[in-house]
């Protein structure tokens, strides 16, 4: 063994007895070590008479269970975060997986995926449920089980696309190639749900054949496999004389009715649908069809072309009509008085020239018919303007119907303005210099080349417009503004009442700077200051805590503080900090709310020494009240007053469990049980 020296004689010959767990010096016989921890397997006799090995199984993941004294309040205590995550994950996976009826092998695989994901920190920032669902679905895909993502989203009540996103991310990050879904996988599952009885197998086979045919006809690319399955099953059922309505099928398959109908129509378009049932089972057509979306696209193209041809024809017809109209107009004019005609002609010429030149100035030559129509309409417009009387309106009315002049005007109304907009833009384009490259150095100066100020000015409203707009906006968003006002009123009212609790939006926890302290005592002090649990901590007690180590309670060194109740507090605080060291850290947490409740009570308790304090206690079952109730129990001797207080506290049933732990630390255990 390693050279150990005997303390008594200095000899180096030390014998280690593994069975007894002793280390003995062979020279002088003194026992150096007793109760060495051995790593032998021990056997224990159990009730049946057999013997079983002593020990616990420790799992590979995590540090394993630490034996907790006092019953183990929380299973997850004392473990590091990673182990907790994995354990939680395992639990969830089993829970969800059993609902999906996955076997153990799948669940284990899913857990392995989860471990990989946790190692790559993919579980951060995502809901655990989503990650678990993604792992499970990944397993389903790799194993080829007939589970859809929809099933999982049904179970979790989560949007299927959200789950899909997580799943895709997981598959990408873990470099797992999930094989593509084959709709054939779903057939047995859906067929079973549709309850075909004995003919289940035959119907399934027929449906499978149908599906394969659909695949050959390119109906399955880009479509939900469940929709195709539904259509195939519906047809197969009908083929075997089963009456399954569309509604039943969609309730099983989980697609929309219109989707199913669409699939059926598409299938109808394929040549296979023309075969009879027997033929279908025997023959397999060779030719393949294009995917339906492709044919739809082609159809659209053809429709467009047709439309173009039609519109051209329409134009020609219109052209003819307008030429007829012109002819009629001319005839009518000739029948009117000459003077007016002269005027009209004059104006007509001028106007026509103006409009045509301005409208068609620099743009390409429009269709002749359009030009003719436009000039014709302008003619009418000016005629109306100048004519004014009934005769001109008659003239206009005759070629068209009754209410037409108004329609014309309204037609023409927007036209000139639109035209003028068009003109100004095009003119501006020609005049303005082409927009050159701005400064490549990008010094922040706004290069104004090519930007026209006039147009931008139009974007800015003037006073009246601004007012109108403000009013409009107010009206639109009245609800939101009202809510804001109500909220403010509410806050103001609460402020008055003094119960205003500011609901700040949840800020991420600000990381406090790690406490720099030279000793444990300082560290505790600083921590207490930061956490602001109480300003009445007796630091002297704490100081002595440190000096005493983990020994007995610092009875001797307790000095009477200014406030009697503060001592109580210090005890509690001590208890809290002590028990915090245990694995029962949650106990400490529970103590803290007690501690924080007490400062509030301090006002009530007041300066009265707690031995004589009035019994406010009885109606208050809270531990804070215990402070007060130490009065009646005055048969305890004075020097162990501290202990008594502790005892009295322990006497309250609501803190018994708590206190037991706390008092266990002190080692004064016998009295509390008798205390109450």
């Amino acid at each position, binding site marked *: 063994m390693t050279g150990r020296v005997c303390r008594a004689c200095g000899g180096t010959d030390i014998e280690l007895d593994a069975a007894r767990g002793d280390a003995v010096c062979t020279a002088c016989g003194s026992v150096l070590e007793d109760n060495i921890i051995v790593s032998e397997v021990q056997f224990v006799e159990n009730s049946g008479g057999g013997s079983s090995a002593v020990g616990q199984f420790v799992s590979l993941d995590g540090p394993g269970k630490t034996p907790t004294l006092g019953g183990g309040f929380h299973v997850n205590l004392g473990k590091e975060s990673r182990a907790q995550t994995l354990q939680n994950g395992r639990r969830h996976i089993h829970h969800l997986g059993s609902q999906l009826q996955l076997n153990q092998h799948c669940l284990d695989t899913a857990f392995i995926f989860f471990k990989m994901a946790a190692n790559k920190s993919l579980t951060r920032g995502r809901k655990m449920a989503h990650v678990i669902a993604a792992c499970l679905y990944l397993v389903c895909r790799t194993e080829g089980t007939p589970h859809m993502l929809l099933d999982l989203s049904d179970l979790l009540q989560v949007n299927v696309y959200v789950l899909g996103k997580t799943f895709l991310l997981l598959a990408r990050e873990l470099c797992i*190639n999930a094989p593509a879904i084959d709709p054939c996988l779903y057939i047995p599952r859906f067929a079973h749900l549709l309850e075909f009885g004995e003919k289940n197998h035959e119907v399934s086979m027929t449906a499978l054949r149908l599906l394969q045919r659909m695949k050959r006809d390119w109906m399955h*690319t880009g479509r939900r496999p469940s929709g195709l399955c539904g259509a195939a099953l519906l047809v197969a059922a009908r083929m075997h004389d089963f009456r399954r309505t569309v509604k039943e099928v969609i309730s099983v398959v989980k697609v929309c009715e219109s989707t199913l109908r669409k699939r059926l129509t598409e299938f109808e378009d394929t040549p296979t649908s023309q075969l009879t049932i027997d033929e279908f089972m025997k023959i397999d057509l060779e030719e393949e069809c294009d995917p339906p979306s492709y044919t739809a696209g082609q159809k659209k193209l053809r429709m467009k072309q047709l439309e173009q041809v039609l519109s051209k024809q329409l134009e020609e017809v219109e052209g003819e009509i307008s030429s007829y109209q012109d002819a009629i107009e001319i005839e009518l004019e000739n029948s009117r008085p000459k003077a007016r005609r002269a005027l009209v002609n004059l104006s007509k010429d001028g106007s026509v020239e103006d409009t045509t030149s301005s409208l068609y100035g620099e743009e390409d030559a429009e269709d002749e018919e359009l030009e003719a129509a436009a000039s014709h309409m302008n003619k009418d417009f000016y005629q109306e303007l100048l004519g004014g009387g009934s005769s001109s309106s008659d003239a206009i009315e005759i070629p068209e119907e009754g209410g037409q002049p108004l329609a014309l005007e309204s037609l023409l109304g927007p036209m000139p303005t639109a035209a003028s907009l068009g003109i100004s833009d095009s003119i501006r384009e020609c005049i303005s210099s082409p927009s050159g490259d701005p400064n490549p150095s990008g010094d922040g100066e706004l*290069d104004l080349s090519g930007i026209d100020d006039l147009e931008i000015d139009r974007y800015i409203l003037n006073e009246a417009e601004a007012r109108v707009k403000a009013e409009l906006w107010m009206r639109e968003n009245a609800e*939101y503004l009202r809510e804001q006002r109500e909220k403010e009123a509410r806050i103001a009212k609460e402020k008055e009442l003094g119960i205003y609790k500011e609901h700040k939006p949840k800020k991420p926890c600000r990381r406090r700077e790690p406490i720099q302290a030279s000793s444990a005592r300082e560290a505790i002090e600083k921590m207490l200051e930061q956490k602001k649990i109480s300003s009445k901590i007796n630091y002297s007690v704490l100081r002595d805590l440190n000096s005493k180590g983990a020994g007995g309670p610092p009875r001797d060194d307790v000095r009477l503080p200014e406030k009697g109740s503060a001592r109580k507090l210090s005890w509690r605080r001590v208890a809290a900090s002590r028990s915090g060291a245990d694995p029962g850290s949650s106990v400490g947490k529970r103590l803290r709310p007690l501690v924080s409740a007490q400062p509030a009570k301090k006002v009530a308790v007041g300066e009265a020494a707690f031995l004589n304090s009035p019994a406010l206690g009885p109606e208050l079952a809270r531990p804070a009240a215990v402070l007060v109730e130490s009065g009646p129990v005055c048969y305890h001797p004075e020097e162990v007053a501290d202990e008594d207080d502790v005892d009295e506290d322990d006497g309250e049933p609501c803190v018994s469990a708590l206190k037991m732990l706390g008092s266990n630390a002190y080692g004064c255990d016998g009295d509390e049980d008798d205390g109450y």
Partner: protein
Amino acid sequence: MDADSDVALDILITNVVCVFRTRCHLNLRKIALEGANVIYKRDVGKVLMKLRKPRITATIWSSGKIICTGATSEEEAKFGARRLARSLQKLGFQVIFTDFKVVNVLAVCNMPFEIRLPEFTKNNRPHASYEPELHPAVCYRIKSLRATLQIFSTGSITVTGPNVKAVATAVEQIYPFVFEKFFSQIRNKDMYIRSREQE
């Protein structure tokens, strides 16, 4: 008979998204009141301003950051952004046009043939991902270009990338893969039909 034939594919740029900063605080309320074509979203804290000339929509935040969407080319995006800055200047803010950057370009391209998606995915495993349950297209990511292509079975491809050049490169890269699919299918069909005829 190879896939090297130079096909002139029309790549249509449908959207260019760019951002720039004005380096000055903008009073959204003032813009909302005095602008003729603005939508003020007070609950979110932004103003949407639409320009007609290059048809763009800009999201204006009070910090001075502006996002411009809807342009159909990079130059147009820059032009529109400058116009926007000019109009903000007219409203009275001390605007400086800095940090202009084209962030995203979306383009559409049409192949004259259909594409078999499941086989395509199988051959292009790590890059392509196809989930028929979620989306009818294959999502193909090119990491080097930071571009994403969505390939539909009809042959239309939607490409998004950081700039126009990347988008064009991406289409060039994907073309051989896609063509191979189609072509092999044709070839198989040919052979199949011929073998049938022989029988």
